[in-house]
């Protein structure tokens, strides 16, 4: 693996577990206007026409991040706002192209972020069926799992309402319940649990541990250090696009908290 300039002590690679995600010296750069507005196609064209390039600024969101995730890893990702956590997660799913470096994964991960419902005009029930079919389950498998998914989401009373009527917490619960059925794969949870209530958070943390035990891999982006301590076997600390620390949860979180308090 290529070495990068930051001196990060990577944990000893486990001998008996297979790598599922390799992040190799990844850089992500956004082109932004100095006003903070991302350029649209039309803006870019007019820039060329007028020959003014000064307002354009490049934001280097990730600066050479490297690590390897193994099966049965549950990796907490911490860092301040704007440290590149979400960018890294989106890059792992392939939604953000890397400017340099590459990411390799054993399968295409599911990404649970805060926000929009899957198909907001359809009921929760229909979203579960279609989401399941999209992830490659058969109708029989979905039927077999349907009650579990609904029970896990705790949305029995609302399951036939269109998802646009759901609160953000309810949306997150349904999405998490659905995406976490696929227990042997890569799941990325980007702050999605933060909108859930305490009961749901406890339940989903238990589910994450379960996925981990079933040879799945979970990335958990969170600002709740307690959540991370409870679920993660390893923590990655990002700061301003670089990997500051990668290792044992308690050690990394202690160092992070210390740096925050300074």
């Amino acid at each position, binding site marked *: 693996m290529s070495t990068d300039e930051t001196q990060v002590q990577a944990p000893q690679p486990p001998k008996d577990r297979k790598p599922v995600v390799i992040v190799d010296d990844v850089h992500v750069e956004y082109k932004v206007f100095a006003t903070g507005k991302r350029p649209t196609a039309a803006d870019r064209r007019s820039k060329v026409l007028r020959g003014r390039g000064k307002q354009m600024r490049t934001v280097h969101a990730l600066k050479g991040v490297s690590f390897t995730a193994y099966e049965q890893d549950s990796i907490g990702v911490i860092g301040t706002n704007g440290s590149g956590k979400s960018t890294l997660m989106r890059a792992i799913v392939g939604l953000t192209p890397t400017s340099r470096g590459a990411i390799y994964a054993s399968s295409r991960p599911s990404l649970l*972020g805060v926000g929009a419902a899957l198909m907001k*005009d*359809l009921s929760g029930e229909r979203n579960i069926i279609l989401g399941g079919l999209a992830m490659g389950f058969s109708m029989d498998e979905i039927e077999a799992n349907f009650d579990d998914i609904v029970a896990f989401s705790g949305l029995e009373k609302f399951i036939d309402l269109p998802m646009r009527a759901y609160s953000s917490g309810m949306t997150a619960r349904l999405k998490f319940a659905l995406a976490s059925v696929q227990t042997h794969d890569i799941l990325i949870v980007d702050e999605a649990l933060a909108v859930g209530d305490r009961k749901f958070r406890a339940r989903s943390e238990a589910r994450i541990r379960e996925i981990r035990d079933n040879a799945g891999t979970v990335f958990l982006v969170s600002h709740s250090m307690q959540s991370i301590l409870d679920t993660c076997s390893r923590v990655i600390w990002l700061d301003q696009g670089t990997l500051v620390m990668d290792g044992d949860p308690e050690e990394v979180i202690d160092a992070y908290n210390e740096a925050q308090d300074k």
Partner: protein
Amino acid sequence: MTTAEDAARLGLHKVGGRPPLRDYVADVWRRRTFIYSMARFKIESENQQNSLGMLWVILKPLLNALVYGLIFGLLLPSNTRPPHFVEFLLIGVFVFEFFAQSWTAGGKSITNNASLVQSLAFPRMVLPLAAVTQRFLQFLPTVGIMLVFLLASGNRPQLHWLLIVPIFALYFVFSCGLALVTARLAAHWRDLNNFLPFLTRFFFYTTGIFFSVEERFGPRDGHKGHPTIIKISDFQPIHEFLSLARSALLAGDSYTIDERYWLFAGTWSLGLFAFGVWFFWRAEERYGRVD
């Protein structure tokens, strides 16, 4: 050993790459239940909020035909009309409506489902295909209305009416191909969706829907007409599908068609579909990105 080789040895794929075309198509085929279910659920949810509910599936095309019948049948008389004009118009409007609807819906299928695309991993090709399937399911009852209307207006059922089955099957394949191409173009360049209504309107007025291209531009009364326009129409797929459908359903000399239309329409459908699958797959990793 480089990381890339390492990763390949471990069976890891580069993120942002795309699977080989063959695997990809197999993956899409495995999700055919998704395509059909999504189409059905969307129809239901679109009608759920209306008090007349599913009745709209039939009501919409009927009102459409009524409006066009009023305008072109009564308000704007013309001498470029074939016999059985009302049937001619009805078939034209209904058959064209499917094309216009599935083109527009196909173009928006990726951008409208951004949240789904960004959360779950699945071959994106199922979205445009589901959009066209939805319009096709909505088109089927209008075919029923069309047949009922033909019977009610005194046409005797003929065995060659059955030809509409292969015709509309080809028409569906053609629309899928067009939707795949448009969906990718719209993902690169969103403005395309704003142009689509104008494009469909252009085709609506230039394809023989409320006038017969042959009667308007063909040779008659000693004039030689406009052979170039006839020639272009011969190769225009929508005109081919309309002519095929009319020739299957309507009797009379003005509805006999060039048998080569089958070949042309078949080539258009399969050719555009094959190209569409390849073209859409080429940008698989691109869909759902925000920048």
